[in-house]
């Protein structure tokens, strides 16, 4: 079974802090995703990576950056956390290209910025 592991289930940070959310997958997938989930807004794509060091912006990249130095690890970075970034963050992975493979999600990180 594919395993996507997010390093923290719950995280509390202060406004202005630099925050790292880590995601690791064990299936050598090319594609990795970061989504943000808020009530009523569904799953919004923040960033997408299709290979090591390759990335694309999603719908809501403002205030976020990403890092993919190794294939298995995709990090989401909040350069200066703000209260409106309090949310549930979901990481996902799957094989590359337009294909019929499903996304495998991690269990999510619930981030609270105070």
């Amino acid at each position, binding site marked *: 079974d594919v395993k996507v592991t997010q390093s923290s289930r719950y995280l509390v940070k202060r406004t202005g802090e630099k925050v790292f959310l880590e995601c690791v997958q064990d299936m050598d997938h*090319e*594609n990795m*995703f970061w*989504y943000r989930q808020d009530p*009523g*807004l*569904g*799953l*919004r*794509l923040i960033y*997408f990576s*299709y290979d090591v060091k390759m990335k*694309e912006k*999603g*719908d809501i990249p403002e205030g976020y950056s990403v890092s993919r130095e190794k294939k298995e690890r995709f990090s989401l970075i909040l350069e200066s956390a703000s209260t409106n970034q309090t949310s549930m963050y*979901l990481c996902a992975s*799957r*094989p*590359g*290209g*337009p*294909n*019929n493979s*499903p*996304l*495998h*999600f*991690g*269990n*999510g990180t619930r981030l609270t910025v105070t």
Partner: protein
Amino acid sequence: QQPVQSPQAVILREGEDAVINCSSSKALYSVHWYRQKHGEAPVFLMILLKGGEQKGHDKISASFNEKKQQSSLYLTASQLSYSGTYFCGPQDRGSTLGRLYFGRGTQLTVWP
């Protein structure tokens, strides 16, 4: 870029049927469907690849109309276990790298 899902919420009694619709403004390669239960990660239900293709998962099936850029999820004789939020993820033809957007979700509640 988010696809449009309707309805936003559905409340059913066990045994009743429901339809969830998903539409995109882009030409589609495929459509994914996922279900998320409260406090859990979304779980894959099915992928539809061809125009008109229908797939099934238990008593949950779906259709895909390429021309209309739409997909519908059909839940027949609903069970308590069907409760959750359903998301569609249309993959557009321009996304050759595999990028995937999701809709806002449809919250389905099934009562005994």
